[in-house]
């Protein structure tokens, strides 16, 4: 039996129409899903987090210009240096030695092979830090819930590349994906405080951060420690902000709050004493 081409076309159009009507509600659901979780997330499912971690690691590899331990090296890093750098930690000589993951050559193959490997520990500088940004962008697209991606990206944009607007936009994107996250609020406050500077906005954002961090309900020890650290840095920065604004009483109150969680309460006590002296000193 011969089927007319017209009937075939009609049949295919009908099939397409039926499929379109059937898939339309699902497509709407997908597009809503995509809004909150982006297209890459929809494509990769949970595997996207693995890719995101890999891209985040790539950012760290680029930060070290290729000097990086492989999975077979015993001194694989505990914490990525882009994270510690974004927290303001400077590397000491001891740290550098610890990171000499090559060690002494084990044999002639290892020894000769080092001619063809990058064996010097360096960090990107002089605005070359921009080279890590594509990987952070990809990591954020693949795992929008990974907070470090936004904080590290915003830190390098703000501190090393002087791109405050992009840093703020990146953090705001992070906040849209993770509403009220205290770490993101802290970073956002740093932009307002140090870079713009807009101390009023910084105060508002950090105070919101303190409220949010107190609302957290940590379960594991690690989560409890993270909560303490975030609370500590928020209140210490708030104290310094208030001190700069001449509101010593508020500053003392924040420092006292910080003392409860700080690993160095005696240091904070010295600051409180100094502030109390200022308060009690006769006004000129």
């Amino acid at each position, binding site marked *: 039996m011969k089927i007319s081409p017209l009937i075939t076309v009609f049949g295919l159009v009908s099939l397409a129409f039926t499929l379109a009507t059937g898939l339309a509600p699902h497509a709407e659901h997908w597009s809503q899903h995509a809004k909150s979780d982006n297209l890459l997330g929809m494509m990769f499912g949970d595997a996207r987090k693995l890719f995101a971690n890999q891209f985040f690691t790539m950012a760290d590899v*680029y930060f070290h210009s*290729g000097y990086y331990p492989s999975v077979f090296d015993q001194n694989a890093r505990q914490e990525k240096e882009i994270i510690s750098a974004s927290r303001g930690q400077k590397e000491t000589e001891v740290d550098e030695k610890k990171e000499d993951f090559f060690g002494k050559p084990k044999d002639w193959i290892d020894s000769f092979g080092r001619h063809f*490997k990058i064996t010097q520990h360096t960090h990107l500088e002089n605005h070359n830090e921009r080279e890590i940004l594509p*990987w952070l962008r990809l990591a954020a697209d693949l795992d929008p819930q990974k907070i470090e991606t936004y904080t590290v990206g915003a830190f390098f944009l703000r501190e090393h*590349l002087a*791109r405050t607007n992009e840093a703020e936009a990146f953090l705001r994107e992070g906040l849209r994906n993770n509403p009220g996250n205290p770490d993101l609020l802290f970073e956002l406050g740093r932009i307002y405080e140090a870079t713009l500077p807009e101390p009023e906005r910084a105060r508002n954002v950090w105070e919101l951060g303190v409220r949010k961090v107190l609302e957290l309900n940590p379960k594991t020890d690690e989560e409890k420690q993270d909560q303490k650290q975030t609370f500590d840095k928020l209140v210490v920065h708030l104290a310094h902000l208030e001190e700069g604004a001449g509101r010593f009483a508020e500053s003392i109150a924040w420092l006292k709050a910080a003392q409860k969680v700080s690993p160095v309460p005696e240091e904070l006590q010295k600051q409180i004493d100094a502030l109390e002296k200022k308060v009690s000193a006769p006004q000129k």
Partner: protein
Amino acid sequence: MNKIFALAGVVIKELYRRKDFYVLFVLTALLTLGAGTANFFHDDKIIRYVKDICLLLIWVSSIVIAIVTTARQIPAEREARTIFPLLAKPVSRGQVIAGKFLGCWLASGIALVVFYFFFAILNGTREHSWPVGIYLQALWMQWFLLAIVTAMVLLGSIYFAAPSSTNTICFIVVIGLLGLGGHLGKIALQQAPPVQNILMVLYFFIPHLEWYDLRDFVVYDQPMIAWPAIALATLYAAVWTAILLFLAWLGFRRKGLNT
């Protein structure tokens, strides 16, 4: 020697008659240019990821060209029965092996030069720098890696049943050598005997292809490598190539040619 060059010439002509190279080159160019147009935080000076992607594609393409071109040489001659008039020229079996190897290696080299020229132009226009020295070292080392790979595939094409199996096995071996070769020693130290001993023996008796991968030096703008080290690596590649070609000749010498 003329016979070897004549055989090599035929293989080179085959490279530009077939579509493999053109497809891979266009694909590399398109993917690289596509990656280059991406906008990250409105910063148009970001370049290293483009270099990284382009070099990775060049590596994949050159290995594909070398393996696929080499794997079909002798089986195709046997299948088309052109091996008989070839050997009746007279051309010895050793000369066939040498000619085929030289042709495939030179063809891979020509492809590499085109790829690296594209890479240098792309990088020069974006970064406004021309580190020709490190490009030449990277190209040279990659070409000598392809010498080992070509010889290995030629050897495989004599022992394995069909070009498809040669291709598959050689791809796995090359990827394994590149990815694990340099780490076998470390892995061995973490194992108990006798696995440790076996891995150690393997570590010392495999060709260390990972030395020839200088992509990091190009991507991260590192200084050039000392020339004596390059010369020694070249010698190492030459020795391995000679060993593999000798084994290929031994196999081909005794091989029946009827399909």
